[in-house]
């Protein structure tokens, strides 16, 4: 057949595309259970890291069932609701009306110390950001934080998942002394920027060269924590 004829070109393109599509969809379907499991284990590892429990890929599921004693959903008014927190998709909840949203909460218990763990979801420069923040029993002081991202710039914004960025969140407070919700502010200007701004209670240093990611992270913490404000205030009294 003439290689330059329209028919040949058309058939060639169709066969090539169908072949490639078949191979790719076959691979995607066969590998999907394994990929799904990796994502679940990673989620469990992240939750454990937020309360300073080291885990490996192999023991994450066991540790998770040992330490995460309770998980439930709350609405924006702070009332408990039934449902599986682990399977709740925060992204879907965010697209609902504010009153209908259910927010997952996990309670970790280690050495008789309880910590509340709250999942976060937000936007960075190139894609979604997410993370977990665990709180002391006063429901105000941050006990630990872990963040991750899909596609932030390597070496710059991508460093939000590094320990040196996450560590300074520990000990920061969400509410001021009067009980107003303040959240955490990320200060631009390199190492010590929060100190220079005089905001050691609620401030951490941003990443140099990763300003948009840092700001996105600040918004994420603020917006997500705002949803739990009522729940945290109620839990404090108990």
């Amino acid at each position, binding site marked *: 057949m003439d290689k330059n004829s329209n028919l040949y070109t058309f058939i060639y393109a169709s066969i090539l595309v169908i072949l490639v599509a078949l191979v790719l969809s076959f*691979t995607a379907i066969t590998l999907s259970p394994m990929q799904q499991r990796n994502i679940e284990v990673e989620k469990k590892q992240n939750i454990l890291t937020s309360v300073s429990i080291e885990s490996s890929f192999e023991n994450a599921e066991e540790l998770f069932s040992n330490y995460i004693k309770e998980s439930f959903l709350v609405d924006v008014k702070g009332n408990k609701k039934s449902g599986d927190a682990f399977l709740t998709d925060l992204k879907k909840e965010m697209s609902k009306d504010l009153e209908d949203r259910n927010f997952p909460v996990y309670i970790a218990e280690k050495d008789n110390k309880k910590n509340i763990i709250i999942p976060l979801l937000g936007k960075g420069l190139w894609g979604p950001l997410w993370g977990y923040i665990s709180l002391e029993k006063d429901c105000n002081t941050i006990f630990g934080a872990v963040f991750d991202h899909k596609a932030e710039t390597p*070496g710059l914004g991508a460093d939000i998942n590094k320990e040196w960025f996450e560590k300074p969140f520990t000990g920061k407070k969400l509410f001021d002394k009067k009980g107003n919700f303040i959240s955490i502010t990320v200060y631009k200007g390199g190492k010590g920027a929060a100190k220079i701004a005089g905001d050691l209670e609620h401030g951490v240093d941003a990443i140099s060269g990763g300003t948009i990611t840092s700001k996105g992270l600040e918004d994420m913490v603020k917006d997500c924590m705002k949803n739990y404000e009522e729940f945290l205030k109620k839990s404090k009294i108990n």
Partner: protein
Amino acid sequence: MDPKNKKLLTNPINIDNPITIQVLGICSALAVTVKLEPAVVMSISVLFVLAFANVIISLLRNTIPSRIRIIVQLVIIAFLVILVDQVLKAFLYDVSKQLSVFVGLIITNCIIMGRLEAFALANKPFPAFLDGLGNSAGYGIILIIVAFFRELLGSGTVWEIQVIPNFVYEMGYQNNGLMILPPMALIVVGIIIWIQRAKTPELIEN
């Protein structure tokens, strides 16, 4: 090895380097060279994709209709990249998390299209394979050299390990913040080109 084949492998590393001589793939050289680790991951992924895309295109070279050859090349590149990504997500999840950022970058890397168009379409599979290896090695070497200096001077680390001792910082030394911004990658590449041209007589123009 046949000297002609050997040249396919060694030329792109020096006198026909895709970055410093052909000036291809500059965007990714700017984007992923802030730290050494992503630069190495990127180099390995380009090596895989380029070598196999070259072989596949070379095998198909007599059947591809010339009017849609660019589209065929793109389909093959995208196919390989997605395949690698899927397999890594299932078996090497940690690596895949680092790589996911680069998937888009690999598809748009002009070295790959350039080699498919210039070499694989006109040569047998084995030389095409060698050409792919050589060019991605030439690309990788420059990436790694640039990333080494940018990480060392910009963050004071090599492969995330601190190499500049603390007392140097106490004496007033500071990391050069400019090194982590893209313009410095261009300047480092420029310096490499300068050194390479000064050292290689074949490249000196009148």
